[in-house]
Structures are given as C-alpha cells and as structure tokens.
C-alpha cells in the first residue's frame, strides 16, 4: 500500500531519468498547492496562537509561547528572555518587572543578582506551543453543538430540496420539447444577474408573511431553486441518449418513473457536483441567515461565529479557532463526495 502511494506521488514521465517536464510539473503543482493550501495552513496555525501572538508584528509562522522559569524567591514563574549584554555575551534571564524602557531581570541560576537591562537588547525565549484554550473556551461558552445542528439541518435540508426541484426543472427543460423552452431557460439563467442584496427586502417580506422568520425553513426555502443548478443539470441531461428515454417510454414507464428511475440515476455525476456546490453555499451562507434568524437558538455556525466580532473588539483567536471547527465537517463531506464523483463518472459511461 505504502509503496503504491509512494509510486503514485513520485510518478515521473520515464521510469529512470528525471525529465525537464517532471521538474516543471512538480514546480507547478507545488506552486498550486502553496497558493491554495497556504491560507488554510496559515488559518489552522494561527488558530492555535494566543491573542497577544496574533497582534504581533512581524507575525511568526508557528504558534509560539514564551517559556517561563521558576526562580527562587518569586511566587509566579517569570518569563525568560535571551539578553545580549554590553560585552557581547548572550545570557538567558528571567524578567521580574518592566519599568519604562528598562527591565529588571534576574538570572534563574543566581537569583540574588538583579540586573537592569534596556528592553531593546532582549528577545523572548519561545517554544512551539498550542493555545488549546482557543478551542476549549468557546466550545464551553458558545453553544457550538446547537449551531452545528442548525447548520447541518439547513445544509442537508436545503441540498436535498435543491437537488429535487432543480433536477425536476432540468428534466422538463431537457427531455421535453415545447415552445418557449429556450426562453424559459434564458429567464432562469437571467436571474443569475440579480444579486441577493437587490431582492433581500422583497424576499424578507414574503418570508415574514409566511411566518418563517426565526425558523430554519426561512433559510432553507428561498434559496432552494438555483439557476446554476438548473443549468448544470440540464446540460448534463441533454447528454443522456434520447434512445434511453424512448426505450423507457416503450417500456411503459410513466413520466415520473422516467425521471426517477432512468434520468436521475444517470445524472448522478452532475447531481454530485451540484450537491457539493449546494453544501458549500449553504454551509458558508451568512447574509440571508443573518437577516432571517435573530434568536440565538436558531443561529447557524456562521452567525455564531459573528458573535465573536464585537463592535469595538474582535476576538480573533476565538474567531480563527471556531472557523477551523466550522471548516471540518464540510471538509470531511468533500473528501467523501469527491470519491463518489470519480466513481460516478466512471460507472455511468455508456458506450
């Protein structure tokens, strides 16, 4: 298994020599990985930094914490610094207190001797340390699991409804031929050009009339019909051979069973793509839930995260940590669906 993975990852054009295209390919791929994966790595590493470390400039790459030392005669552990002395030697000293630009320091090995050091001449001694409290604290205070449940309900519910009604519209627009078919499709695609901010107020009024404010249905339903989804599915369904539809008709299939038992299974790859999109949209959706949901118990994760953003102060360490937590479920879903797509494409191939 390991050797297969190794031979997969270290593939080359020829078995033996490294061709220049191999070098080019690897450079290109590494660049791509750095570009796409870099910000995520940065986010994850930053989420383990303390609030103070996040404010630091220049920022460090790894989450670091200052080492403290127990010094005789002092109750609390003292932070350690490496200090460049006037004679050029470097010593490791603990700081007792700081007064203006001078710091009063002590050598942990020799606690009697107190030294006055200008703060410019010292560097904190640090080690790799994860600020786990970024995660544990909000998970205790913040009703993470309720928000998670709401987000899952919205995402799963909306995705199922989206797949259903989009595929029905796509079925009608691809399998049936009728006057105005292209015009209808044109209208549907046209709605892509209307940003949500424009229809925010009218949709909100409708949702209010329907009594769906502060209910998850108010988030699920308005966005369920997506022009992108209809278009994507329609284009895919157009590639299903007409003979199959005719064959189903000859087989006495009702229109519903043509849709459900022939067209839907054959559209799996497109449905999987749309499912991924829908999950992504719904999971990350912020503006619309913010408008419809005002009570804490119906908040989705994204709205919950917003709670760490005060008007005057942003608790970045919590925001970052909880962002990582909200990313995890979608990442797992993605990893799963991606496999499904490749098998879907491979198995639907009709000769």
């Amino acid at each position: 298994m390991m050797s297969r993975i190794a031979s997969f990852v270290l593939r080359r054009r020829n078995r033996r020599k490294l061709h220049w295209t191999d070098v080019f390919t690897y450079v290109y791929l590494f660049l791509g990985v750095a570009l796409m994966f870099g910000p995520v790595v940065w986010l994850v590493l930053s989420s383990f930094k303390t609030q103070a470390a996040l404010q630091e400039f220049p920022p460090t790459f790894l989450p670091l914490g200052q080492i403290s030392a127990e010094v005789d005669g002092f109750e609390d552990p003292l932070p350690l610094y490496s200090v460049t002395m006037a004679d050029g030697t470097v010593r490791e000293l603990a700081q007792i207190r700081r007064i203006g630009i001078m710091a009063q320091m002590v050598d942990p090995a020799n606690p009697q001797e107190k030294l006055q050091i200008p703060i410019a001449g010292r560097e904190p001694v640090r080690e790799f340390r994860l600020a786990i409290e970024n995660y544990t604290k909000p998970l205790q205070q913040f009703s993470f699991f309720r928000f998670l449940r709401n987000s899952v309900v919205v995402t799963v519910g909306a995705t199922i409804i989206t797949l259903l009604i989009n595929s029905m519209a796509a079925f009608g627009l691809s399998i049936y031929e009728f006057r105005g078919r292209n015009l209808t499709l044109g209208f549907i695609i046209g709605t892509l050009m209307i940003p949500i901010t424009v229809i925010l107020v009218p949709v909100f009024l409708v949702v209010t009339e329907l009594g769906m404010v502060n209910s998850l249905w108010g988030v699920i339903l308005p966005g369920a019909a997506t022009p992108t989804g209809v278009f994507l599915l329609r284009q895919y369904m157009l590639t299903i051979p007409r003979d199959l539809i005719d064959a189903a008709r000859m087989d006495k299939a009702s229109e519903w069973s043509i849709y459900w038992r022939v067209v839907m299974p054959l559209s799996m790859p497109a449905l999987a793509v749309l499912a991924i999109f829908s999950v992504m949209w719904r999971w990350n959706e912020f503006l619309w839930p913010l408008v419809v949901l005002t009570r804490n118990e119906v908040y989705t994760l994204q709205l919950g995260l917003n709670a760490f953003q005060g008007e005057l102060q942003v608790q970045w360490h919590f925001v970052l940590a909880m962002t990582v937590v909200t990313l995890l479920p979608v990442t797992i879903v993605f990893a799963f669906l991606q496999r499904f797509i490749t098998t879907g494409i491979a198995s639907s191939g009709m000769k």
Partner: protein
Amino acid sequence: MADLELQNVTKSFGDVRVIHGADLKIADGEFVVLVGPSGCGKSTLLRMIAGLEPATSGDIRIDDETVNHVPASDRGLAMVFQSYALYPHMSVYKNMAFGLENTRMDRAEIKRRVGNAAEMLRLTDYLHRRPKALSGGQRQRVAIGRAIVRDPKIFLFDEPLSNLDAELRVSMRKELAALHADLGGTMIYVTHDQVEAMTLADRIVVLNEGRIEQIGSPLDLYNRPVNQFVAGFIGSPRMNLWECRTESNGDAGIRLHAGSNALPFTVELDQVPDRLVLGVRPENIEVADSGDADLVATVAFSEQLGGETYFYCDIDGLPQITVHQLGQRPITRGQALPLRLQRDQLHLFDVAGPVLKHRAGSAE
C-alpha cells in the same frame, strides 16, 4: 400479436415532408422489413408506428383501432433500438424487468418471464451483470430479451444489427429468424442492408425519399422490380443498368444500341420509346465464345472469392459492368472478355424509372 395498417400516413418536420403518404397493411404474425438508403424515412416511419413520433396526417391502426393519439407506452409494442438503449445503471435482469415492473406485474411472474427469455437468449449467466460488462452480441440479445418479456402486440426493430461486426451479424440474423419462427409475433424490422432484408423478410417494403417504392416478397422484388430504384437497390452487387437508344425493327422487335454497341438481339414492347434503360443482373451475364458474344468488354479488375468471381469490366460508352461467375476463372486485368446476356432475364425500364417489361428478351 396483432395486425397493423397505415393509411396515407405522412410526416413533416417543419416545411420538410419526409414521408409522403405511406399505405401499408401488415398481417398478424408477418415479418416485414422496411429497407431503403439512409435518409429515406424508414426509421421515422417505424418511430411513428411506435408512437415516439406523431404522424402529421393519416391513420395508424393496430387491430382495427386508430392509435394516432395513443401514447407510445399504451400501444403495447416493443422496440429494439440500434444503440440497444440498455439502461446502463441497471443489471441485465433489471433491464428486462423494467418494462414489466411498470405494469405492476407480480414479482414471481416477472421472474418467470425474465428467466424464460434469458434462457431462450442464452443470457442466464449474465443476469447480474451491467450492460457495459457485456459484448456487443450479448447487449443485442438483452435488448431483444427486453422486448420478448413484454409479450408485445408487435416487435419493432430499428437497425438492430448495424453495430455488430460482420460475423456476429450473420449469426444474429439466423437467431432472429429462429426467434420469429418460435414466437410467431408480428415483426417490423428496419434496415439499410438489403441482404438482411432478403434473408429475414416475409415481405419487404422498399422506401426511397419518403415514398414506398414497392412492397413484395423478397424474390418478387428481386425478379420483378417495379422501377429502376428497386432494381438497383435489391440484389448485390447491383443490377447493371444501361441507357440504350432504340431502333424499331418492324415486327421483328426492337433493336437496342448501348453506347456505341448495337446489341445483336431484339426485345418486344407495345410502344417504342426513343430511349430506354436495359437492366441485367451480374449473374445473368455469361462469358461467351467470341462467336456468339453480344459485347466485348475489357476487365478493369476482378474479385476472386474462391467459390465465385466478380469481374468489373469497361465498355466504350457504358458505365462499368459487373459480371458474376461461379467458380474460379483464370482471367487477368486488361484481358478482353466476350459477354453474352441471358435473353430471358432482361428488364426494361422507362428512362424516368418505372418498369416497361420483365424478361423482355426474345430469341434472335
């Protein structure tokens, strides 16, 4: 099992008329082949019978019931498609059972029927495979099985063998003929291959440019083609058709001039046109002694098939002539070949197409 009748059926796509008034009666249990070159409307006609394409005008009647407005699913017909159109996401069993499940048939009955069909078509070992794991011939049999289990009123075949290789096509052709003998159902079969038409059909319907040219038994069409098109289409290789000048010879008949050659025999016709078309099949031309030859041709090339030989010959002023001879002939390119036409196997056609006379030749 049913009979079918088409009454003046037409079909237009927009302004383009593709079927011009087709009349056809097919009796119960008959195997009818619709044959014609590509684009002649044969598939469209079949799809109209199936109900997949509405007829523009005219009546389609199954068992004396007009079905023009009955949807395909309710006509009780089954169709085998050129592309097989097997559902790729279903197993062979499911493919065959799908049509029965749609009629809410009892599960045990479905199982029995699919089992029987699979046995008949030697598919029993493949029932749990997906279509893509089958060979072309097996897929074709699944498509046929899907039609058989339904026990339809009429079987429709749309060029079912054209995706198979030559050898398989011959063996599937035999299987289809055997199947028709077993099941005895009414079958309508579309093909562009006149050999398939000749071997399978009880009756052949020849179509050209949306018109039915001739309906008849295979040998009827072969022996008595009603026009130049049917004469050229039925039979392989094609019938030789030469446009000739005529010269009345009084009571002795009509002399023909093919190109620069005066043919040394007469034909008899009531009316004498200026020009006519002489048709003679490749097997009705003999290699003669130079003494009693009608024509002398130059062999352009020959095809030696062992059991039989085809010569393609050039004669001044005539299109290339095909000659069929049994056995092996030691004749080479460029050789002069004296030819004699079998007098009683000549067909005469009007220049515009329709036949004037079959077996038109007479003794010298």
